[in-house]
């Protein structure tokens, strides 16, 4: 099996505090990997290390076969990343955001294709796209940012809590986009603290608690191994006593 993302025994301390401890995870190419766990369990730090934004203390990381700390710029064109608390530029319109990021990503592809794709993914009306993003609702902002993340058809998309705080309709739209792109071969690494979302989206789930990956497998495997009827119940049985 080929892995789009690979992490081996990755550890990280920040200001003396252990944030990640010997985390090992493998994301198969074309899979939707959901990293689930409560707030503060180390999901975001894991993602940042996998993307090379934060340096690991120990361990090995590869994304698309390259060490992100070394390859950095060369692989970023093939990656899409939506940070958990990302916000758009308040004074720029939706369309200007799309143009800005399209110009950054348009190396091999046609800029017009990227723009058109971003407009489709965002699902925003032309009137909204011509309005300043500062006036958008939370759902519209998230949809715009998701479109900027996926506009260049990345080989790996890393979405940190993409469904957090979204209304039902927006959440449905985002899940639909993820499923559609995953079907097209894009590898997804998604974090969530909502086990129902994880169960719905994931091919593979990694459960994190206190900076450690405590279980990994398909939702069905995790449920079967714990005798649970849902991933939520499996999670509680696996990590409930630790948090």
């Amino acid at each position, binding site marked *: 099996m080929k892995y789009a993302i690979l992490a081996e025994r990755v550890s990280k301390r920040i200001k003396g505090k252990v944030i990640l401890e010997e985390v090992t995870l493998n994301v198969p190419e074309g899979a939707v990997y959901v990293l689930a766990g409560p707030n503060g369990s180390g999901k975001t730090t894991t993602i940042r290390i996998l993307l090379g*934004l934060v340096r690991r203390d120990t361990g090995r990381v590869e994304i698309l076969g390259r060490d992100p700390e070394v390859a950095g710029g060369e692989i970023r064109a093939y990656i899409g*990343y939506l*940070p958990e608390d*990302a916000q*758009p530029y308040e*004074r720029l319109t939706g369309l*200007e955001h799309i143009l*800005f990021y399209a*110009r950054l990503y348009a190396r091999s592809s046609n800029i017009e294709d990227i723009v058109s794709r971003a407009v489709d993914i965002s699902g925003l009306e032309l009137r909204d796209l011509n309005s300043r993003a500062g006036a958008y609702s939370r759902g519209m902002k998230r949809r715009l*940012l998701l479109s900027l993340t996926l506009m260049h058809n990345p080989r790996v998309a890393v979405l940190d809590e993409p469904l957090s705080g979204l209304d039902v309709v927006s959440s449905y739209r985002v899940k639909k986009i993820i499923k559609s792109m995953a079907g097209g071969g894009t590898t997804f690494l998604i974090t969530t603290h909502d086990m129902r979302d994880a169960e719905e989206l994931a091919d593979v789930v990694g459960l994190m608690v206190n900076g450690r990956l405590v279980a990994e497998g398909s939702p069905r495997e995790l449920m079967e191994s714990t005798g649970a009827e849902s991933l939520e119940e499996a999670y509680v049985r696996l990590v409930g006593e630790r948090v």
Partner: protein
Amino acid sequence: MLDLLVREFRVVLWKELLDLSRDYRTIIAVVVLPLVSLPSLALLAGFLAASQSVSVAVIIEDEKAFDVAERLSKMVEERAGRLGVHVNVTVTKGSEVTQADVRITIPRGFHGNLTRLDGQAVVVISKLVGSPASDIVYRAVLEALYDISVDVVNERIGRLASIANLTVNPNSLRNPILVSTGYHLAGGAPAEEVQAEVAATAKILQFSLFFVAYPAIVFMSDAIVGERERKTIEKLLIAPISRGGILAGKMVAATILGLLAALADSIALLAFFYLALGALKISLTVALAWTLSSLMTITVTVAIATIIASRSETVRSAQVMSSIVVMIAMAIYFSALIVDLTKLPSWISLALQLIPFTHSALVVQWASLGDLNGILRHLAILALYQLALSYISIRTFNSERLILIR
């Protein structure tokens, strides 16, 4: 490689300028406000000064001195008016008690002493404490009394010459040494008076460099720490763009804002001094040197602000730390207004030249003295500072520090 960097830089610059052009508060604060406020301040100060009214009492204790008192009153009115203060003069007899801002008492025996060949007449002046307008009128009174004294001396010289049966020029007798003042440049070449006036204006332009630094610091702190606070930087950091491309775009945008602010501030400052002091002279060389010096000062300041912002937790802390830089710049530029930076002992000069802002002041100073070598030398040093600081700012622009610092 360079093509890619230029492309990245252009994309970031486009975004930064678009964002900045819609930040009306910043544009008003750094460009419009100085253009309006400083000349308005000068006009207001001028209007208020001209609206001042000072009461002057000429108290005559010597009745024979009435004519001199009348003449003195008229001269004081005329001279004070020229100095921008309206005066209200009353002439009273000595026995009356008078309330006035400036009191000029002509005591008994004044006329006798004034008309005697070797007499020394006395005038007693009393001025109100803590009144700048009274100080101006006091100056007008002294000028008027000097002119009256000149007339009296000329008349005495005429009388003496008549007794001695001589023909003399009273002016030559009073001023046996005639002073003729000229100008020269640092190399010894003669200079015109206009060059001295240009040099005086250059001092104001040197001081105006202070205003160049601050907007650039504010913008750069916001462009880095502000992006983190507004949660927009992490997404940008993972885009396929080099750190150099991101920083170059932001730094050039900060430089453009700084230049606009510098232009506005300098026009406003020159307008202020023009309205307050009268004509100012500026040469093409000085204007060009000031423009280049401002540009280099902004880029150096932006690079320093980038290094500070990359290590700051909040926009406020970045601006507070950067204000130390502004204080140093202010110390240099204020000193340049009152001190000749080229005439300091070598150890002080060396210490000052470790500070990049000294060189930007010196560029303008050498330009005002017409010294091309001096201009180029200090511009080159500024360019070296700029390159070194920009290199450090790019090397220290670290994504982990930007994301994790709290």
